[in-house]
């Protein structure tokens, strides 16, 4: 009988139990819908920070997908935190960095990728290999790609500002390449010119007056006069011509 008594203890709490407890004490994720450059999105947050941004047709779809993904329940919020509204409206990297993010569902590597993407200023783009190098995992380009594809908080963490190594803008989880192009254009990136440049194999923009080379969208490089711009295909070409990498956009290790 003692053995059987022991077995009585092998019980799991019912499905969704923890979620109901958290709801009862007011610790569930709250959510609201907001206007974004890609139309209406649903955003959820909790004590850890912003936990989800989704482009879904309606509230029911958001609840369904959020709960399937996180196992937590949602409660509609009557108010939108001002910092969230500001970051969503301005698209500014500084505003987005002021928010906190709930990345508990991400691995440490994925979180590092996302935090790095958060550094890319509005109106600029960086290639996947830049992120890989900056986080100290230069060979993990593919993993960088999937970490960005699984970004739980797109738009706010701007995975759309990360483009392919060959300069093409690449795919986007929130509605494909067209949506990526649309949001980048809304942020002031000349996507057509960028792809045109990339098409000719030009990856870096050198500035003759300073002997510095940048990523093509770097703010420092953008201020250069047209006659001073020197395109480079490779880092080696740029260095051979006596140029050093820009310290702001870090197109190569210094």
């Amino acid at each position, binding site marked *: *009988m*003692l053995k*059987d*008594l*022991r*077995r*009585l*203890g*092998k*019980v*799991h*709490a*019912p499905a969704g*139990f*923890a979620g*109901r*407890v*958290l709801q*009862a*004490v007011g*610790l569930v994720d709250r959510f609201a819908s907001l206007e974004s450059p890609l139309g209406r999105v649903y955003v959820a947050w909790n*004590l*850890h920070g912003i936990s989800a941004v989704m482009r879904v047709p309606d509230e029911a779809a958001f609840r369904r997908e959020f709960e399937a993904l996180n196992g937590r329940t949602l409660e509609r919020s009557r108010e939108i935190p001002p910092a969230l509204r500001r970051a969503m409206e301005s698209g500014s990297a500084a505003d987005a960095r002021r928010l906190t993010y709930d990345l508990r569902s991400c691995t440490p590597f994925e979180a590092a990728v996302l935090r790095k993407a958060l550094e890319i200023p509005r109106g600029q783009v960086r290639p996947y290999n830049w992120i890989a190098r900056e986080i100290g995992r230069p060979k993990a380009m593919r993993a960088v790609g999937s970490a960005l594809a699984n970004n739980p908080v797109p738009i706010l963490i701007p995975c759309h500002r990360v483009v392919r190594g060959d300069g093409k803008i690449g795919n986007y989880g929130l509605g494909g390449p067209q949506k990526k192009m649309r949001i980048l254009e809304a942020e002031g990136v000349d996507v057509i010119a960028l792809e045109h440049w990339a098409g000719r194999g030009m990856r870096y923009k050198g500035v003759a007056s300073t002997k510095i080379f940048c990523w093509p969208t770097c703010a420092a490089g953008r201020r250069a006069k047209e006659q001073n711009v020197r395109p480079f295909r490779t880092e080696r070409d740029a260095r051979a011509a006596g140029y050093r990498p820009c310290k702001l956009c870090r197109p190569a290790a210094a």
Partner: protein
Amino acid sequence: MSDDERMQREMSMALARDVDAAFEPFVLAYQDRVFAYTLNLTANPAVAEDVAQETFVSAYRALQKYSPARRRALALRSWLYTIALNRVRNLARSPAAKTVSLDGRATIDVADRGAGPPEYAERAETLGELRGALARLALRYRGAVVLRHVEGREYAEIATLLGQPIGTVKSNVHRGLALLRADLQRRGHAQRSSALG
């Protein structure tokens, strides 16, 4: 230090730092233990779930009132057992719930849920009977037997959490087991004789 103790230590430190941030991991860490305890005290999954939920809600309210030092000093699992037992005691006192928690027929079994060994299914009936018999024990025996032989706690821990001398706990456990055996035997006889009927 065992893994279990280390986990408790880390959890109470986290709760001491920030109740809100640590509360979800706290619930996830102890929900199975608390639910098993309330289920074995009430023998009714629906009631057990309500009681388990109330247990965590009271725990949350208390944690918010406690100072960080007090939160750090909590023996979390024992503390939860204490809260849960008090809840069950209140339930037993309220006349509406009496039939639910103390009626031996309420023996819906969930012990075999999930990926247990196959013999669980065959034993489900026995386990259900056992849980029913437990629920018929007076609460002072039931609490002690469940803590000692279902939850596997040491006498010293049980004595502290029940606020009773260790001798009292031991005698309640032994008396409880004897009553349980007698109850099961009586039922077994009754069933066999009615089958022969």
